[in-house]
């Protein structure tokens, strides 16, 4: 089994990779690893706070993906979204289970995306694109998303902390996500 390492996969390629994963095909697992291990590990590291926990999480994400592989339908969504959602859910579940807290310990509002470092061995196209897409957001919108996604704060908690109506926070969250989505769509257009 082979797949291009660079550039986004089309739905058919994603479906084929996941079918290979389901069958335990080593080439498929390695192709998925090459594409997704780093963002998964990075997310785990940011949320769980140690490389050991991040490694365990990364292994669990791939194993969970194997178990759920038959559920994946490339016509319904991107493989990256599916895997990163698994990663985020597993990390948050782990934090809740181990610490009894309902949100990650690390509120990374100060670790918002930066310009990629020049000495990065493999410039990540996906990261560059993600940073460009996030440029469509205001600082306030980026902070809001970070407080929810990395900080685990619900809309109600944010509303109470900021003293604004719950509906306003929900609307702002939606607006921010739609902006990012539109920026991604613009990027995908030739």
């Amino acid at each position, binding site marked *: 089994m082979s797949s291009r390492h660079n550039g986004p996969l089309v739905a058919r390629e994603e479906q084929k990779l996941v079918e290979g994963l389901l069958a335990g095909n080593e080439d498929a697992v390695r192709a998925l690893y090459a594409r997704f*291990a780093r963002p998964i590990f990075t997310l785990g590291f940011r949320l769980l706070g140690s490389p050991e926990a991040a490694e365990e999480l990364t292994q669990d994400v791939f194993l969970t993906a194997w178990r759920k592989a038959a559920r994946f339908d490339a016509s319904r969504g991107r493989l990256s979204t599916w895997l990163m959602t698994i990663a985020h859910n597993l990390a948050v579940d782990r934090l809740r289970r181990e610490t009894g807290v309902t949100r990650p310990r690390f509120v990374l509002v100060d670790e918002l995306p930066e310009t990629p470092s020049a000495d990065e061995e493999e410039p990540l196209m996906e990261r560059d694109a993600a940073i460009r897409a996030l440029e469509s957001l205001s600082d306030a919108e980026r902070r809001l998303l970070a407080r929810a996604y990395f900080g685990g704060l619900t809309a109600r908690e944010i509303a109470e902390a900021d003293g604004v109506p719950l509906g306003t926070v929900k609307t702002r969250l939606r607006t921010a996500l739609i902006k990012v989505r539109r920026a991604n769509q613009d990027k995908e257009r030739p």
Partner: protein
Amino acid sequence: MSCVEIREQLPEFAVGVLPEPERVVVERHLQWCAGCRKEATELGSAVVTFAYALEPAPVPRGLGDRIVARIRQAAGAPGTSRRTRASAALAIAAMITVAALGWGSAMAGRADRFADQAAAAEARRERALATFGRVVRQLVPISQLPVNETHMGQLVPTAGRLGGGAVLQLVSPRTLDFTIVMVNGLERDPAQMPYRVTLQNAAGETLPVGRITELDSTGGADVVRQFENQDLTGYTAVLVTNASGDVVLSGTVDQSAGA
């Protein structure tokens, strides 16, 4: 909950902070509502952008090899000693797709004015059967597992209950019989658990398939049992009961025809 109310929850759902009760309601809704599912997918895609923009952390050397080894072991790749177990696991995975059809069909049946849902459920059924066929061929040579020895059925909720599911049976004179049951959308109320899955024949004799002590966030679970000294011929009724013994899902496996 209406689509408007569901969509109000989707931003929090997408970033993974929607509290449990609402999250389960949203997940159940997304199982059958294509419109809301599309919006959820789009918002989820936007959220992932945020994760991708993080400063990358260095991945430990050898992690890829360790992941490959774990998956190959779990999948029972040739050379491991867990082939049999993995075979069942693969079949379960295939059944998850099959069960999605059961859930979709059940929902379509409850909202029969949505003819397009029924059509979509039928399309999923066909895809599921194709998937299962592929998996079966991966498990054993087709000559050892004639298609007419594998049988399927759907589980539907009893009055006032939620959920759905699907059943796959292998009833063969040559290999061990087994039953796989996959459910979805069951109530996660701890008072309802454990759920029990049993088979029943026309004489009222029952065989336990297994207990469900834990449900995933969509109220789903898989149960598999291989029967070493038991012919499953005639055990066509499938019942899922709650902790009180009330039947919450039921269905019949059509043993007259293969999958």
